[in-house]
């Protein structure tokens, strides 16, 4: 199976000017620092982590909303890292994004139909049978009533708006969808509906997903493989099965241990790993292994040297000096 997306040592740094014209105290936020990631065709890769880990930045850099600082982005075998906007344009229809906030990501002044229509207009696509029919089809496919094509976003609920966002992303028949926290802002019972929809669409349209989320339960359900990030770096990468049953990185273990399970008896018996301290600021990441300040196993080498990536099995790798 070919890889639809490959990220090689991808880095995205943001410079902050801490100071004015006279004091050039520039800070650098290493939002993404040397990330390696692949998404195969038809696969769903879950990208998880907490605030400041860089997962959203990865998502946006992949579709080139941000220009990468270093590293490579290879899409369908093509190195698009340095592509200008005009060169990216024809590729944009093949990679689409779904956003987190269904209330903010739809233009409130446009009807649903015209929101999706603009996707066609920008890429000069004239669907067979007319765009209105195609839009109707899209709405139906995401579980909405095609007769609502002329309604405005505020007339829909959160879950429905997210479906509209999905319809818009599907309009140009993409190959890769980067979903940035697509269900976090939704109610629990609606989350399940949208997750199911994404699952169905993937099967039907042979889509690949880069699924960015902080909710491990959802990621576990939908992903084939999972990548765990912390402060801009990849901590561990494995198949879903492996990661959740056999996590080898202390951070992954702590993360999993922190996720509450809706089962009182299990919860009462559980051994919790409670991490001490706070997430360090991405402006000032710890030296050596970025996780060392909160890791219960940290020793001197962790504080001085960043760990190399260990390949434990063909699909399971991690960056740690003392794997579990």
């Amino acid at each position, binding site marked *: 199976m070919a890889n639809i997306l490959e990220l090689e040592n991808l880095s995205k740094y943001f410079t902050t000017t801490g100071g004015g014209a006279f004091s050039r105290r520039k800070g650098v936020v290493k939002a993404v620092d040397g990330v390696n990631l692949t998404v195969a065709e038809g696969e769903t890769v879950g990208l998880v982590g*907490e605030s400041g880990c860089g997962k959203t930045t990865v998502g946006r850099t992949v579709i080139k909303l941000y220009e990468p600082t270093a590293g490579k982005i290879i899409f369908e075998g093509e190195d698009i890292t340095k592509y200008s906007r005009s060169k990216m344009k024809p590729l944009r229809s093949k990679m689409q994004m779904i956003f987190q906030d269904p209330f903010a990501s739809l233009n409130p002044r446009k009807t649903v139909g015209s929101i999706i229509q603009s996707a066609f207009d920008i890429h000069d696509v004239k669907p067979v049978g007319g765009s209105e029919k195609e839009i109707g089809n899209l709405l139906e496919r995401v579980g909405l009533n095609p007769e609502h094509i002329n309604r405005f976003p505020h007339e829909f609920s959160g879950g429905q708006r997210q479906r509209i966002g999905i319809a818009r992303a599907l309009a140009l028949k993409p190959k890769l969808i980067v979903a940035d926290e697509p269900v976090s802002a939704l109610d629990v019972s*609606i989350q399940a509906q949208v997750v199911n929809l994404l699952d169905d669409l993937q099967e039907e349209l042979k889509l690949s997903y880069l699924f960015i989320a902080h909710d*491990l*339960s959802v990621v576990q359900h939908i992903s084939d493989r999972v990548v765990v990030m912390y402060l801009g770096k990849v901590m561990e990468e494995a198949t879903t099965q492996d990661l959740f049953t056999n996590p080898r990185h202390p951070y992954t273990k702590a993360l999993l241990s922190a996720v509450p399970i*809706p089962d009182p008896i299990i919860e009462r018996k559980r051994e919790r790993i409670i991490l001490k301290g706070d*997430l360090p600021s991405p402006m000032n990441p710890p030296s050596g292994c970025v996780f060392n300040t909160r890791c219960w196993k940290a020793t001197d080498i962790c504080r001085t040297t960043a760990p190399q990536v260990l390949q434990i099995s063909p699909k399971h790798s991690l960056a740690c000096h003392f794997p579990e």
Partner: protein
Amino acid sequence: MKPFLEVKDLSVAFPTPDGLVKAADGISFELNQGETLAIVGESGSGKSVTNLAIMGLHNRAKTQISGSVNINLPDRSIDVISSTEDEVRKLRGSAISMIFQDPMSSLHPYYSVGDQISEAWRIYNKGSKSDGIKRATEMIDLVGIPDAAKRVREFPHQFSGGMRQRVMIAMALVNNPKLIIADEPTTALDVTVQSQIIQLLRDMQKEFNMAILLVTHDLGVVAEVADRVCVMYAGKIVEQAKVDEIYYRPAQPYTVGLLQSIPRVDQLQGKRLNAIQGQPPSLINLPKGCSFAERCEFKKHVAGNLCTEVAPALEEKADQHFARCHLSAAQIQDLAMAAK
């Protein structure tokens, strides 16, 4: 001993140009000290409205509130609904405290953390400003913020999300309240921070024998901390029982649906989630009969149009286990098994 909090038949409605929004209808429950009651619901279920009503924080002019909310203190009992604003105000921050969801926007950006905690303390305690700061420093230390003496002078934006929530907890605990109402206290936090905060709340509860009323939509958190659970839907309590009962022997289709629709980290499910179809009803035009009927998978097992015609009452289906459904608990459990 009487329960600390007795809510009887609480109803909250808002008149709007489009009609009367019945945000909460006939809510009844009790809470004892040292106990944790979780109110679970999604948006529009009425859980936050109920919370605010307990603290008397609704705008009395614009809200129709009925029923009673009895706070049973050692020396007297106060009904929040029928008392004056002044009487209720004396409860806030002293007998009952509240923690909110978003600690960044819930703390005043212009005052230092110490000032805000000190203010909360000085409402009910005679003391100078420096006494207040001393007390604030103690509290900040108690909730596990390192370097308390220095941090007490800092401002909310200088703290991280988890630390801010600790500050809120410190502020809520400063007058040794008997009840803490926590409104989605961990929703805005990272999961590793969430577990720290939950641990903190439990430690505080043990130390001060407080009652905790936890409002959330996160069924994982509920399983972790709750003794009893109320499930709310469309403004009504649809199920109420001890925590184990709710999770292992749910007696209401909505509860069953919720539990089956959430993915779990410890269960690798390859198949689809059992999602509840449809959406919650509008609170202005509540349907006749059961509010959950149009989304209910088990409706077909009820004879005739009972579900859509007659709204079921909250009945005791098993020992201390109440549910609002025309089907019996046993029937629901069988159907739930089959649906899995």
